[in-house]
């Protein structure tokens, strides 16, 4: 029966084709607008392609000569034709060595044996935006101005994102109740210093840079770049997920997400995705929304999700593909993004998790790539992808909105997209620099350390559901990726596998604000024993020091802070010394272990024009300890030490000496104590490009040819 249908279908097709082809009259050969569009657009595409190609061909010799001329002018003899830098955020050298010894990482083992392996000194503090900024600029934080994810406003004591500032358009037009923005949002990068690919470009060397942190907003240079960590979501935050539920709970999420009610309407459920603020609203703060429907089918254990014109059917525990979401503001203004749905439950309650609304890479509302068309190119080639800086939703797992499997699925989905981008960049960059940073290593270790370490407090509830294999699996997957890259590396290519820092347990929280309060350095308003977030109820007139963010302690300096009380000069110096002497070696009363190994004076740690923006002191926690969740958010509690019970159970914001990164290379690196700050000058030197004078890093001595045609190693 089926075969008959197939046969008759093909007969129809043949008949139709014959009619079209054999029809003798011109007018009958036209078969509607579909064919018209197909033919016209194909011809147009070919025509445009021909024009582009002709332009590229005709001008190539001239451009090639210009490039050669620029190279001659600014460079010496290059030792390499191409540099491939694979960044694995948070890859830990001790774990890597352990897994290599266990035979789990054959490709890294091969690099170690035939090339080099070193621990890579990281930055103070060992936090990704700080370390990657140093990686790309070759300078210490005093010269690139990034000290943490957050910086504090001295006037308000409130935090702001340290890497970029997004403001509305400069001008607007007020018509009645509307304020119409004239122009685009202004994005100002706060990171200073010049990435080394800029210097390569000046010397006519092309670079492909993918998702290196703190590259938002993208800067112009000769090459292509997709911004990484610090790209905001459509709300302007660093990632706000949405949890839609029929459960009547009132408790808000602490961070990173909003709870949205689902309303039942017969067999259909309706909810909405919160979007950015209405740009037309006079006073601001009116949130745009995009509504969607859920139609559960309990019998099939699935539901249909309808968002605008798109729809998808999801099984419980399944993610959708990226879906377009539009927030309409009126007068034709709208904001556009992409998100994924995750169907968590359909009976007895309906619960749907929605990822933070990412900037649509195919139609970006904010610049996320250089040139702007690069993000569009990648979206057209591979489909939509996560653009948010912190694309793996750690907050949703912390808040138990996502479970372990859902979180891992999200991580590896993003990782897969990144791999595709990397291999495309490798194909397109046969000479020059190809640098790509993978975040999966960082996020998975943050969230799954609790199962990896025996007796971690965050795993107490897990009982039989512990997943100790997740971190070894992670390293194995990264090793597979490295193996695939090694296949594409020839003897003229330098391959570096680097991480910005290592990883350790985060079992105990330390609230420095609580310690400062209990030791008389921070005062609360009369009658208060605890503060709210961001120093609510702090009496600044009696406060000499405070902390916010991950490692910094700030003094309340007169003339600098709005209500500063500490005189700059001797008083500041003696207070710093006093705090250091008391905090160094601070003991955890419960375990008797030292929670803080060292407190560093930033004046002695940093040098450069932006030192004034640095904290006054940096806390170097012992492995196993980190700033408490409350302390990070400027909250004073009564407990100084407490267990960390969150899924976010591994960390690296500790004493930098305890968490160096990794450095694997396919060439011999002679230096015994390499640092992340040395990478930029080393790459420039290997390409024969003159080093700018302000570098803090020193180029390594890299010897020998790369291992020729390194194939991936096989598992033993």
């Amino acid at each position: 029966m089926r075969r008959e249908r197939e046969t008759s279908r093909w007969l129809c097709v043949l008949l139709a084709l014959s009619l079209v082809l054999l029809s003798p009259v011109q007018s009958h050969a036209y078969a509607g607008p579909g064919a018209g569009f197909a033919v016209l657009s194909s011809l147009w595409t070919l025509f445009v392609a021909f024009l582009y190609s002709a332009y590229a061909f005709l001008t190539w010799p001239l451009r090639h000569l210009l490039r050669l001329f620029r190279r001659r002018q600014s460079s010496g003899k290059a030792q390499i034709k191409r540099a491939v830098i694979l960044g694995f955020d948070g890859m830990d050298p001790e774990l890597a060595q352990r897994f290599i010894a266990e035979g789990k990482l054959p490709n890294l083992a091969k690099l170690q044996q035939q090339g080099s392996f070193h621990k890579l000194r990281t930055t103070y503090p060992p936090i990704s935006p700080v370390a990657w900024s140093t990686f790309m600029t070759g300078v210490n934080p005093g010269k690139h101005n990034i000290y943490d994810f957050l910086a504090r406003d001295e006037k308000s004591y409130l935090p702001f994102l340290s890497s970029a500032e997004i403001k509305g358009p400069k001008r607007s037009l007020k018509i009645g109740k509307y304020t119409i923005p004239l122009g685009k949002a202004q994005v100002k990068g706060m990171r200073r210093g010049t990435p080394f690919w800029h210097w390569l470009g000046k010397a006519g060397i092309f670079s492909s840079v993918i998702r290196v942190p703190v590259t938002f907003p993208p800067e112009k240079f000769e090459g292509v770049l997709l911004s990484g960590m610090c790209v905001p979501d459509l709300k302007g935050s660093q990632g706000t997920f949405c949890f839609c539920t029929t459960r009547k709970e009132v408790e808000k999420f602490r961070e990173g997400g909003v709870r949205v009610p689902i309303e039942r309407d017969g067999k259909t459920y309706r909810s909405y995705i919160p979007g950015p603020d209405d740009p037309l609203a006079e006073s601001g703060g009116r949130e745009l929304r995009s509504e969607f429907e859920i139609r559960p089918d309990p019998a099939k254990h699935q539901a249909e999700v309808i968002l605008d014109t798109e729809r998808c059917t999801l099984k419980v525990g399944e993610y959708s593909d990226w879906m377009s979401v539009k927030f309409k503001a009126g007068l034709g203004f709208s904001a556009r993004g992409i998100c994924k749905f995750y169907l968590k439950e359909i009976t007895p309650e309906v619960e749907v998790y929605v990822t933070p609304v990412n900037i649509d890479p195919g139609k970006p509302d904010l610049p996320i790539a250089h040139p702007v068309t690069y993000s569009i190119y990648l979206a057209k080639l591979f489909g939509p992808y996560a653009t948010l800086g912190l694309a793996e939703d750690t907050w949703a797992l912390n808040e138990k909105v996502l479970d372990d499997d859902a979180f891992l699925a999200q991580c590896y989905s993003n990782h897969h997209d990144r791999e595709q981008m990397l291999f495309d960049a490798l194909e397109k960059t046969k000479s020059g620099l190809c640098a790509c940073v993978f975040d999966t290593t960082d996020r998975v270790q943050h969230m799954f350390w609790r199962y990896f370490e025996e007796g971690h407090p965050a795993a107490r509830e897990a009982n039989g559901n512990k997943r100790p294999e997740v971190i070894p699996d992670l390293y194995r997957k990264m090793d597979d990726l490295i193996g695939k890259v090694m296949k594409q590396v020839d003897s003229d290519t330098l391959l570096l596998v680097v991480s910005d820092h290592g990883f350790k347990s985060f079992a105990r929280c330390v609230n420095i604000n609580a310690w400062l309060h209990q030791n008389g350095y921070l005062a609360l308003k009369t009658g208060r024993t605890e503060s709210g977030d961001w120093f609510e109820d702090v009496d600044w007139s009696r406060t000499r020091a405070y902390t916010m963010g991950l490692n910094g302690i700030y003094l309340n300096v007169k003339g600098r802070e709005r209500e500063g009380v500490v005189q700059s000069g001797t008083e500041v110096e003696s207070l710093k010394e006093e705090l250091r002497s008391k905090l160094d070696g601070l003991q955890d009363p419960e375990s008797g272990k030292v929670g803080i190994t060292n407190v560093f004076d930033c004046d002695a740690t940093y040098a450069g024009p932006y030192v004034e923006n640095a904290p006054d002191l940096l806390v170097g926690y012992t492995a196993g300890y980190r700033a408490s969740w409350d302390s990070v958010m400027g909250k004073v509690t009564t407990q100084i030490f407490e267990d960390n019970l969150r899924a976010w159970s591994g960390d690296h914001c500790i004493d930098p000496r305890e968490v160096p990164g990794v450095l694997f290379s396919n060439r011999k690196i002679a230096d015994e104590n390499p640092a992340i700050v040395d990478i930029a000058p080393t790459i420039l030197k290997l390409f024969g490009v003159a080093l700018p004078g302000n570098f803090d890093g020193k180029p390594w001595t890299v010897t020998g040819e790369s291992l020729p045609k390194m194939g991936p190693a096989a598992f033993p």
Partner: protein
Amino acid sequence: MSLLHSPLLLVFLLSIVIGFLMVIVFRYTSDQKAIRVAKDHLKAHLLAVRLFQDQIQVVLISYWRIVRSTGTYLRLAFMPLLYVSVPLIFLMVQIDRYLGYTPLPTGQTFLVTAKLANSEALDQAVVKLPDGVTLTAPAVHVPAVREIVWRLSADAKGTGSLEVTAAGQSVTKSLEVSDGIKRISTIRLYDRWWERIFVSAEPELPASSGVQSIEVNYPERTISFAWMEWNWIWLFFVLSLIFGFLFKTILGIEI
């Protein structure tokens, strides 16, 4: 002239209706996702030429991929075309009978050509004209192609038929004298069924008649639009593309 007798308006209406129907048919007979992916790949390779223009090898590879993606896109776009082509071709053949030619005008001469099975019968061939149509010149015989040509003139509007007799058998051919939109058959044929389907709107000539075809040279119709004279099919092509584009955008259909 009523609006429905305006060829321009008819072409507009047809373009809207067919533009809409074709876009809908396209939607349901095509692999929308595959078309979207193919178009996206095309655009990506185009962008690659621009983004990596200094890498001549990348430009060459991208150009090859553009050609390959164009092939994929055309293949995907033409599959639905195959589904719609049969009804659409027959529909357009019918429309062409109304809009392709104008009826014969009064007071002007026109030619009628009869092709016979053998040239010996040319001398016996005669034409009998309907009322209001007159012969304006003697018949011209072209033995090399077995044709006989009459020059005629119509003095009055109306629908009639002329009768050609050859080898003792008579056959008729319709004749339309008017100034409106009429269904017109320019030729009546013997055999050649394939051609009959597309160009003739009359029954087949009988085999015994010895006449292979009778053709009337109706004037081709042109339609004035945008300061230009258009053949209806070209105008339909342009307008249906425009309306199709509007509908596909409104309905979110990938073409």
